[in-house]
């Protein structure tokens, strides 16, 4: 199975934006090189023919872990808001939101 092409600087820029990270020009250059190296090394995985091998997401398989529908004590609001960077009217204040939620 063929793996994907080498990681480009543009892709790193795109991925940084997706992850809400802003990098300096130097960081972009450095990270592009470093990440490409890691991915090259990981190519030994991506190039393997593992067709038919199931994926394992949980090493120890379990099912149906549930809890009863019972109300439990909540956190004290003051304790929670004391840790918030900005509070108004008992709510978390954030700067203007430009886009609608997806």
């Amino acid at each position, binding site marked *: 199975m063929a793996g994907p092409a080498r990681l480009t600087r543009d892709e790193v820029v795109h991925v940084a934006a997706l992850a*809400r990270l802003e990098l300096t020009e130097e960081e972009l250059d450095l990270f592009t090189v470093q*990440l490409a190296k*890691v991915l090259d090394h990981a190519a030994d995985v991506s190039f*393997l023919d*593992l067709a038919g091998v199931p994926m394992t997401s949980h090493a120890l398989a*379990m099912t149906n872990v549930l809890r009863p529908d019972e109300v439990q004590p909540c956190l004290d609001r003051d304790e929670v808001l004391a*840790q918030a*960077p900005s509070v108004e009217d008992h709510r978390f204040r954030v700067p203007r939101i430009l886009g609608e939620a997806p």
Partner: protein
Amino acid sequence: MSAPRPSIELAQAVRSGARAAVDVVGEHLAAIEAGDGAVHAFNLVTAEQARDQAAAVDRMVAEGGDPGPLAGVPIALKDNLCTRGVPTTCSSRILEGWLPPYDATVVTRLRRAGAVVVGKTNMDEFAMGSSTEGSAFGPTHNPHDTSRVPGGSSGGSAAAVAAGFAPLALGSDTGGSIRQPAALCGVVGMKPTYGTVSRYGLVAFASSLDQIGPLATTVADAALLFDVIGGHDPADSTSLNRPSPRVLSVLDDGVAGLAVGVLTEFLEGAAPDVVARVREAAEACAAAGATVQEVSVPVVHLGLSAYYLISPGEASSNLARYDGVRYGLRVDAEDTVAMNTATRSAGFGAEVKRRIMLGTYVLSAGYMDAYYNQALRVRTKTIEGFDAAYACCDVLLGPTSPTTAFPLGSKTGDPLAMYQSDVCTIPSNLAGHPAISIPFGPGDDGLPVGVQVLGPALSEGTLFRVAAVVEAAAPPLLPLGSAGEVRS
């Protein structure tokens, strides 16, 4: 002959009233004060709370009560374990000063067992690293040679135990982060079967790999600590709903009749003196009645690559919540997106950023199948590979780390070289299997070497039995600070 158990004996002395917990904690706080300047094992020493906890233990004893199996024993907690009202930073600027409003489940269990928390230990930021140099608050120094790394990411916890600041510590292990620093610092460190210790309150790095585990000076102490923290937790959906293995009681059962497999692939990349120690440990098992053979598990060669696809993927998602909205650092900006970006860019260190971007990339559209999903298939193969090995062996033996502790700064310029530190530890995380590192004498440079015992899921009983035998045969480590003399 029974395995040495200083913490257990200490707890018994406190429970019986023979020793006062406040005296015990006082001694350890004094040691920390005198010695941590050079080591920097701690991000925070909780001296006042520790004295209060110790006093409460003594009061209970005086009133005829039983404070529990860890009564009065000082313990250090890795700074990614939530402690209510006590800063939990993950050694990151983005959580500097954050006070959790709740305790991790393991912390609650420790308190109930009477343990006394002396402080929060330094770590690689968000547990990403193998040397603790990734901490935003400066590295921890290896107590055996302060020019060297303690390993990581639980470097602070391993150093605290090695330096005598606390006889017990908790760390977390995602790719080797308990075992590798334990090996480099000459202490015992163990990663349990995935799901035996609750992750509730452990700040997540890679959810399907993370486990909390014990660090101690001896195998028996680590066993007790595991017994105390292990067990089902309804607050963690990945917590196994069956009895956690009880290991202290079987510790001295010996290894007669057990089959030990020396994992050849792990020996291949290891330094000659490390290999020598592993072979000596294998001989000790044989002398104690185990059968020893060489075993090949070729799939472990893929472990590093698979790990560096799965763990950053999960981490990139787990660390998205650090956005400056609800807690932690905020760097203000005109709009929320800019604020998120400025906050995360200022708050995360380089390694964390690298892994977040790597993880975002391997999960992204078009690449997920080639990278992340492939790694999940490698995980399946890893489990199969181990299963085949465990058809003929009860446990596997190998190095914990390919080398002894390396000098500070020697690998920070080359992330890939740093990742190689974990080749022997990663496969157990992928498979969800338990593994333990036991100090087995010095290497040629006088620095500690760790020998690793690996077992299948829920085989902790067997694991600890073998570990006890290995420990009994281990050559003594050099006194702290004298490794430098050996090299020169």
